[in-house]
């Protein structure tokens, strides 16, 4: 179980980082989404992995830590909203300039500053 969760986090982070370093907005946004999935699972695991136990103190012997679940919920909502925002801004940028590369365009030395 630990190996499965740890490798899932690792693979998602690696894939996310690879995509983030692409030059175009669409792969970069996909990479950001993968990274946020990875961090959500990581946060979830930070309260230790417990299977089939309630997230509340009862008479039972074991319980799972409820706090990381609340943290993950907050993180999911925030990352969801942020992804929507960045998709909108990226779309606006792409539709406006017909170019979806993330980097600044090359500087033309004869003209002033950024073309």
């Amino acid at each position, binding site marked *: 179980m630990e190996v499965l969760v740890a490798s899932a986090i690792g693979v998602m982070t690696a894939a996310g980082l690879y995509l983030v370093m692409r030059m175009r907005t669409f792969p970069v946004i996909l990479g950001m989404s993968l990274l946020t999935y990875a961090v959500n699972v990581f*946060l979830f695991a*930070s309260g230790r992995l417990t299977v089939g136990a309630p997230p509340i103190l009862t008479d039972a012997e074991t319980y799972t830590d409820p706090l990381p679940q609340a943290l993950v919920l907050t993180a999911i909502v925030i990352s969801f909203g942020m992804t929507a925002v960045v998709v909108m801004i990226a779309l606006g940028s792409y539709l406006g300039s017909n170019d979806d590369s*993330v980097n600044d365009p090359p500087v033309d030395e004869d003209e002033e500053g950024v073309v």
Partner: protein
Amino acid sequence: MTHWLVAPVILPAMLAPFIVLAARYHIGIQRVFSLAGTLALIAIGAGLVWATADGTVMLYQLGDWAAPFGIVLVGDRLSAMMVLLTAVLGLLVLIYSIGSEWDARGNHFHALFQFQLMGIMGAFLTGDLFNLFVFFEVLLIASYGLMIHAGGNERLRAGVQYVLFNLLGSTLFLFALGAIYAETGTLNMADLALRADLIGEEATVGIRVAAVLLLLVFAIKAALVPLHFWLPSSYAEAPGPVAALFAIMTKVGAYAIIRVYTMIFPPDLAATDGLFSVWLQPAALLSLALGMIGVLAAKKLDRLVAFAVIGSMGMVLVSISMFTPTSIAAALYYIIHSTLAGAALFLIVDLVGHSRASLALRAMPPVMGAAVISGLFFAAAIAMAGLPPLSGFIGKLLILDAGYQTGSAGLIWTVILASSLIAVVGFGRAGSTVFWKANSVEAGEDAGFKDAPATTALMAVGGLLALSVALTVLGGYVHDHMIATADQLFDPAPYIATVTETPGKLSTPAEGY
């Protein structure tokens, strides 16, 4: 009395939806409410500074839940000072954006502005690391909207870069928080300080990773080289008043470094030994040097100011990285100064760009109101470069003095003095190109008539510079307060006791629990 502590967060949080819902078609009403709210924030901030000046630590438990179970807001000297600084900067930037009519060039400027203030205030006041993350997101999501205010293709492209970089930073922040929670089981700062102290020397791997990750996150916010790449184009492309407001956002990163690394991971903690002297100080010296070289190398006036901001953050972080009470006091003084000077410079760039074909640093016909604007630029450049008689000089002197007492005095002095010289040359080159050479250029036929800059806009810039003068004249009082603040930071026991021992719900478990 302690309820006032939540007011800097609640007031903009209430005002912003009101502006969106009730006044969205009336720019005049929006302006009135936005100005009134920011004035009230200044009053509250001044009240908080006054209430915490004697060393009191104010505590507000949300929903009366006791720490570490509930979320707390904590106000001490440092938080109160930053709240007041934000409110004062907010007012002057707001006056400028109204005077220059930037706020009418797109929708919802005032609502986003208030949300931005709410996020910054919350980040300064919170006593909980996860809450700090949430307030970072609040201030960031408002800043995304402000950054692309009034649109334009270049601004949108810069906005995409800015948002993506900050999303990466937020993800890193969550990784750091997860690591800290896995190691200690708490995210309340005061509680963390107690628990980090208990970690034995043999089990420091996790907490070391967490401490470094957290420092990386705050370094991204503070635009520390080599994590500064987001800053130049996003600050240069943002609308002038928004860039001026962003001058406080890099300071949020510096604030978080000071707060977390004096309380949770203090310098004498074995687990994080060497983090500052080995890693932060060289990076800070590098950002100082690179920022000022950028000032000299910039081809456009807006990029020049953005690099000056990077350089001044490098200066702040050099001072923080020495980590003595004297150096923290010097850093706090410099934070106030560089916020005011940086904001003034961004506003001046906007004034110049108002009636100039482009901001490129080559000779072009004179700008409207060049006499006043060049005077303002001269004063702001003197402040930013750290020449006497303005506050930058005193701040730099304090940092040099603090550096003199540390082991690496030679290196610190060399870098600070050399980079100041480069900055002076860079600002001198820019000022003479924009304002002096302009007189030798004939105005082209296509040079249409442009309005002179609005008087209110000029007054707002003058206000920022007047505050810089006040910071110089009243330097003694301010510095005394900064020393008291630094002493309070280096003795976190009262802070921790106030947070963990104030009773609330859940602090005394019921019988048989």
